[in-house]
């Protein structure tokens, strides 16, 4: 049984229950129960209509739970009969769920957890493992999130930008634990992009595919980082690149540029170069200029300084860096890189050591320490 395929049915099954009048929190619990049941039963007894099976089982679970609840409160005036299935198309339900789970009233971590469970169909345990927190903690986070959105009307239009930010966060969380969050983010973004006609949704999907394509080349077997310029490009996933480029081109043709499309365009230019030396840095700088216009982010200006250094030489890169706020993460690492390219090994070694102290994760810290060690042992 393909678990991802099973989980892809989650949002539309949940949508059916909500449209039948179930409240979101109870419906979501019932769908989780049905998924668990499917994983148990399907291998020996596969259903003819997978979605129909899930809807039936989930609805029964919902009714059972509601009845039990009602009995506890000594009330019998609850939904009892199964209403006719709603006629609304499944795509709308899926989209509404994305909006609900990324609702602006939720904190980013709550929106991420709720999206992975209610839209992605992951279990609380899987989500907890992926984010390295105890299962009880994640269960609380999810049930609080459900309470927060319980008053939100299901048919309210939502904000695509908030949904995209949540999916971007999931993708960037990486690869810890049994659940591959990057692949899961791609699956969810693909599902969203097919449910809504939005160039930035396509742009984000393209961005994810283009970065995911480099995954095998990005680390050595012992977990050390391999910088882009030193990656074995033969190990990049060409199918993923081709798909990302095609999606990006279609999105760009719509002429509604956004930050995800611009970031994807930069990733596509890197993917285009068979060897690092063939990289079209001039065009990359132009895309960073676009990106800076769109976001005005200091991180973009920092990355732009690297691109300028490659396009016009280290001096020009250092000049571009001069306008960037020094407190931006990875500033020292970029300064170290540009100083080395400029031939100032002493300053570069000192800056790499400083960058290592400020590194946001161990893999980067170790990489930067090695860079400092490499330059110090040249002297």
């Amino acid at each position: 049984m393909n678990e991802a395929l099973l989980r892809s049915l989650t949002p539309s099954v949940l949508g059916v229950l909500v449209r039948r009048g179930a409240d979101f929190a109870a419906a979501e619990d019932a769908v989780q129960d049905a998924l668990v049941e499917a994983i148990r039963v399907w291998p020996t007894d596969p259903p003819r209509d997978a979605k129909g099976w899930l809807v039936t089982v989930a609805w029964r679970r919902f009714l059972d739970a509601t009845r039990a609840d009602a009995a506890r409160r000594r009330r019998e005036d609850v939904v009892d009969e199964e209403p006719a299935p709603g006629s609304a198309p499944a795509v709308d339900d899926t989209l509404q769920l994305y909006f609900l789970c990324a609702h602006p009233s939720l904190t980013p971590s709550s929106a991420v957890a709720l999206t992975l469970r209610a839209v992605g169909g992951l279990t609380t345990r899987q989500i907890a493992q992926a984010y390295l927190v105890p299962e009880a903690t994640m269960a609380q986070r999810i049930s609080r999130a459900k309470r927060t959105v319980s008053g939100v009307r299901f048919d309210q239009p939502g904000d695509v930008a908030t949904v995209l930010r949540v999916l971007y966060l999931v993708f960037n969380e990486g690869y810890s634990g049994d659940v591959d969050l990057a692949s899961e983010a791609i699956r969810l973004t693909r599902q969203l992009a097919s449910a809504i006609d939005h160039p930035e949704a396509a742009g984000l999907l393209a961005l994810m595919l283009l970065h995911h394509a480099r995954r095998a080349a990005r680390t050595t077997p012992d977990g050390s980082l391999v910088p882009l310029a030193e990656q074995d490009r033969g190990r990049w996933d060409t199918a993923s690149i081709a798909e990302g480029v095609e999606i990006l081109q279609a999105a760009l043709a719509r002429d509604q540029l956004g930050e995800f499309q611009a970031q994807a365009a930069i990733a596509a230019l890197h993917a285009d170069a068979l060897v690092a030396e063939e990289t079209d840095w001039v065009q990359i700088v132009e895309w960073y200029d676009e990106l800076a216009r769109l976001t005005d982010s200091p991180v973009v200006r920092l990355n732009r300084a690297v691109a300028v250094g490659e396009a016009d030489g280290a001096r020009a890169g250092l000049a571009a860096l001069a306008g960037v706020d020094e407190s931006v993460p990875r500033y020292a690492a970029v300064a170290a890189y540009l100083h080395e390219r400029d031939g100032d090994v002493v300053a570069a070694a000192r800056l790499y050591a400083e960058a290592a102290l400020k590194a946001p994760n161990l893999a980067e810290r170790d990489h930067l320490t090695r860079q400092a060690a490499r330059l110090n042992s040249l002297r």
Partner: protein
Amino acid sequence: MAKYLLLKHYRGAPASVNDVPMDQWTPEEVSAHLQYMRDFANRLEETGEYVDEQALAPEGTFVQYGGEGRPPVTDGPFAETKDLIAGWMVIDVDSYERAVELAGELSAAPGAGGKPIHEWLELRPFYGVSPTITE
């Protein structure tokens, strides 16, 4: 079984024997050191003695309640003289002797020149659970 915390310090522990800072090693020495640490953790997982390990960034702040209606009081980044924890490993072992043996092994991780660092690690026992049978 008893749990122990192995604490590694950026500052505050007595100086190690081979105390050349890591950015002054060769890249190969850095790799060898990291490999030693990974192998050590893997071996403990295989023997069923590994519980957890975490590394901490080298900056930190002391924070204190600031009083009714006031924001918390902060002091930091830590002054150079303050003790600064770099990370920890938690092990679950049969005896104090085994904990000491493992801490010694971890402290032998290679540094500059491929020689053991002889780093001082702090070994702290966890409180145990209350026994179910008390008589």
